[in-house]
């Protein structure tokens, strides 16, 4: 059906339409641009609600939730300080995303790398513990976030025992071929940092003797480390001249 020309429309109507359209655009121009505020982050929806709403597309919903959560901390020019965010709520949101898409790494990255940057030790510990708990859910896939948590515990929190615990858990649970040796050996070097040279020496020697290190460069590096550890152990066991005197 051919339409009648625009000229068939009464001119006053066109003017009224244009005026109302200008009014709408003006109203929107006056409206402030929506800006995320920490206080606006609502509680995460219950898992069962999301299950009902995903309509068989949990991964898509998980990605949308990730982006939604992300919008609460990174706004152009107005980055919300992480310390203003409710970390218990953030953990709930991250949990929901992981429940919908257990193989996705996005929430693990957000937890261990983004939200752990908060300048508040209690919140840092909270989110690192969350990373640890979720690592246990799928160690072979999530080991890298656990390794990052161990590094964060050592360098940011200056908490070597905590870093060691994370590294030991990483070594214990993530033993697959996909996990690189440096991650599995992290606890040994942490022991060395803590002055537990004998323990580190035993662990490193055992690792080399097990034959699981197949890369010649890596084996060479670790042997060098073992030698250095042995020298260090001998040095510490020998009484110094001043002590003999």
């Amino acid at each position: 059906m051919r339409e009648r020309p625009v000229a068939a429309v009464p001119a006053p109507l066109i003017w009224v339409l244009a005026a109302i359209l200008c009014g709408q655009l003006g109203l929107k121009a006056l409206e402030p641009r929506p800006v995320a505020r920490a206080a606006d982050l609502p509680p995460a929806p219950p898992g069962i609600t999301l299950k009902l709403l995903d309509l068989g597309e949990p991964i898509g919903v998980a990605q949308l939730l990730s982006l939604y959560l992300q919008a609460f901390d990174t706004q152009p020019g107005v980055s919300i300080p992480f310390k203003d965010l409710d970390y218990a709520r953030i953990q709930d949101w991250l949990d929901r995303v992981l429940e919908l898409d257990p193989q996705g790494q996005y929430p693990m990255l957000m937890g261990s790398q983004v939200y752990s940057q908060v300048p508040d030790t209690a919140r840092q510990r909270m989110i690192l513990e969350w990373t640890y708990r979720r690592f246990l859910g799928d160690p072979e896939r999530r080991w890298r976030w656990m390794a990052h948590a161990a590094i964060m515990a050592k360098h940011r929190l200056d908490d070597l025992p905590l870093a060691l615990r994370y590294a030991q858990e990483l070594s214990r649970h993530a033993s697959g071929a996909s996990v690189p040796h440096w991650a599995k050996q992290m606890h040994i070097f942490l022991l060395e940092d803590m002055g537990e040279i004998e323990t580190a020496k035993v662990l490193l020697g055992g690792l080399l003797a097990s034959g699981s290190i197949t890369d010649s460069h890596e084996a060479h590096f670790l042997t060098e480390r073992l030698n250095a550890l042995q020298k260090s152990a001998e040095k510490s066991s020998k009484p110094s001249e001043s002590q003999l005197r």
Partner: protein
Amino acid sequence: MKLSRVGAIARYTVLEAWRNRLIAIVLMTMAALFLLSVFARELAVTESTRLQTALLASALRLASVFLVGLYILNGLTREFNDKVVELILSLDLPRPAYLLGKFGGFALIAAGVAAIATIPLLLLAPPSRALLWGCSLGLELLIVAAVSVFCITTFTQLLSAAAFVAAFYLLARSITAIQLMSSSSLVAGGGLGQKAGEWLADGMAFLLPRLDTFTQTSWLLDGASAVAMDGALVQSVLYVALLLAAAIFDLYRKNF
């Protein structure tokens, strides 16, 4: 344009809804949703009233929009297909009078549906909060009615019109979140794709009402001042006027 003719069309539109048992369907739907919310309340370990109110309010809102939108789309499609529109326009009746009359009737129906949806919430929330929620739902349904009228006038096909109305409603409910997501990135700078997405979201936000600020469940649970309604009222009046003007524009251009 005689107002009596507009009024007559509006009256017959309401009468048609009554005879099509729309109100009975709305009542049954609301009753079923209320019973479902009672069931959910029984399952709750704590905050059972809060949970029931939240679930019921969001379900009532969606059901109201669905019923009103679908009823209008279906009714007007039939009038176009059965040549009822042509018959009416062959009488001494200007095209805007027909459209305004139809919309007047639909607006009354929307108000009725909003009133029925508010009744169960009066049992769960303080009356002032429930009434505020109901008024906001009425405004939201007015916008949905105007969008439906505009879409049928423009497309005259049920499928395309229904798809447009559904897309409009989902976008209007989520445009704030889309705007927030489009402008946030952990990657510094952001590429051209992100910029384009941001502009697109901002452009859409200019043309859409922010329905996420309407009919909020938190008003029932945590309270809200009537000030929250001011913006919704201005936006509704303006947007309904815009859609009706656009629909009349399209109707003028139709060649029957």
